[in-house]
């Protein structure tokens, strides 16, 4: 049995520095997801995968999936478990739901992801990040929060390829402008190139607007067999077509290359091959803009432009509306924020809307879209290809 898999509903809580608990945000996300498709009966959901990376550290809660099921008002009978891959937890859960549905282990699976990252004292959030890298080797070097690593990536990319600080700024301005039109995004105000260029220094060359924030919030997506999807929605069907996830190293000393992300090249090749969709056919992309430099390298290693040309590609408007590949049309991590487990699901929701044709800022006639996450010390990459048609 090898069945087609569709996305039938998706929604998210308001993201930001939020009042409330992790379980509050999961309820808000479930509610938004149910409201997205009133034809769907949540009682038909037979599986739940919950994506959360910091639930134990910042909410002191393990065994999270049954808790979320209880609060979301669903009673899974085929799978009810949590998935963790830090910043890619959400898209990892989507991949697993895809496999379960495709193979007949489940018919309708909710994937819900989110975090309450802010603790009553903020220092604890930064401190907890030492668990995100190889704790015993990179954590002890103070490499928990990622700005030093991405500053080094940016420095090397600038040195090798002539990428400019202004190229980084183009990404900040674009993604904050998109977020300002997305009521669920953390940041509701656009920023100008002047503000970006004079932003507070974090780790040179990265300034404030080069870095995504720390965020509370959750998101939820429901996937189903094509057969069920036809009964569950009257909106255009959106298919999940193929995925790839690769890891070639974990500790920083084993990174093959700081400016060419080998695992991303592998993951995207797998996703393009399995979806039978060529990179040239992709119309819209949500990529992991944890830092501005990340989105530039992702344009290169996903294959949208040549190696080293990413800065000039984005500087030329090629990953904005009207360009080759509109990217992070909902604001991305830089604009929406980044509650780790929620991000891959937020990306899936935006691609679903773009392919259905009801996005807030619509890419005309989008037929194929992709999402990308990186996680850890640039240690794993995850790529998912969605489409309006099956190949």
């Amino acid at each position, binding site marked *: 049995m090898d069945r087609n898999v569709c996305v039938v509903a998706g929604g998210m809580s308001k993201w930001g520095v939020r009042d409330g608990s992790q379980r509050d945000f999961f309820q808000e996300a479930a509610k938004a997801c149910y409201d997205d498709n009133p034809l769907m009966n949540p009682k038909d959901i037979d599986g739940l995968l919950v994506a959360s990376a910091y639930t134990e550290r910042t909410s002191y809660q393990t065994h999270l999936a049954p808790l979320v099921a209880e609060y979301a008002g669903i009673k899974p009978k085929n799978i009810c478990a949590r998935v963790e891959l830090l910043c890619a937890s959400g898209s990892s859960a989507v991949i697993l739901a895809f496999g379960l549905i495709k193979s007949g282990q489940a018919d309708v699976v909710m994937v819900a992801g989110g975090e309450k990252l802010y603790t009553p004292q903020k220092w604890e959030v930064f401190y907890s990040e030492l668990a995100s890298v190889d704790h015993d080797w990179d954590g002890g070097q103070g490499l928990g929060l990622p*700005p030093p690593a991405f500053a080094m990536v940016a420095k090397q990319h600038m040195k090798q390829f002539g990428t400019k600080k202004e190229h980084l700024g183009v990404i900040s301005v674009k993604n904050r402008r998109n977020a300002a039109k997305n009521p669920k995004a953390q940041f509701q105000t656009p920023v100008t190139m002047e503000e970006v260029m004079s932003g507070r*220094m974090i*780790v040179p060359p990265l300034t404030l607007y080069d870095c995504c924030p720390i965020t509370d919030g959750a998101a939820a997506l429901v996937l189903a067999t094509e057969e069920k999807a036809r009964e569950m929605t009257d909106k255009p069907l959106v298919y999940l077509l193929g995925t790839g996830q690769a890891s070639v190293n974990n500790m920083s000393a084993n990174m093959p290359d700081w400016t060419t992300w080998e695992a991303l090249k592998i993951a995207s090749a797998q996703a393009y091959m399995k979806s039978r969709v060529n990179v040239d056919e992709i119309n819209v992309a949500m990529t992991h803009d944890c830092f501005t430099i990340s989105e530039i390298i992702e344009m290169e290693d996903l294959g949208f432009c040549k190696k080293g040309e990413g800065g000039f590609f984005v500087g030329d408007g090629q990953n904005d509306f009207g360009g080759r590949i509109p990217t992070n049309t909902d604001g991305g991590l830089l604009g929406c924020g980044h509650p780790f487990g929620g991000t891959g699901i937020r990306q899936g929701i935006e691609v679903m809307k773009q392919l259905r044709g009801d996005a807030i800022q619509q890419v005309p006639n989008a037929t194929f879209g992709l999402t990308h996450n990186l996680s850890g010390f640039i240690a794993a990459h995850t790529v998912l290809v969605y489409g309006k048609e099956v190949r």
Partner: protein
Amino acid sequence: MSTPGISILEGKYMVTMDLFPQQSKEFNQVTPFYEFLREGRFTTTKCKDCGAEPFPPRVMCPECYSSALEWIDWPTVGTVIDVTEESVGVPLGFGKPPLIHALVDLQGKRTFFVRIINCAAGELKSGDQVKLAVFDVDPVPQEVGREVVQIPRVFYAFEPVK
């Protein structure tokens, strides 16, 4: 100047809040790495069967899956490729900003992204030499029978060769 290994625990030790690895043999099988560090040596495990030198040190070779490993010395002096200085978001326990890191070519063994101590902001640049710097960090109160024994620990960074 940054200060290595400042205690933030104020007498209330919690393993889940610890910046540094557990180093006693009861909690770690690469204890020799830390014992060698005390002697100023930077070591890893080499596979006796295939010759691979994985880092971090292992109990199994990730290339040929052999368990026949031996400890070998690696260089303790490397060359700076580039430097970053973190002024915002430095985790507690890593001193006052900036927290300095450098990408260091350890004589072709690996390219390490490591903390630099005993170094002023703006002092280090590409091409400079840095050397291993070992310092004491908080001991771990560990139960041994009915007693609680303080297990001393060390960790490492690099510092400019002056």
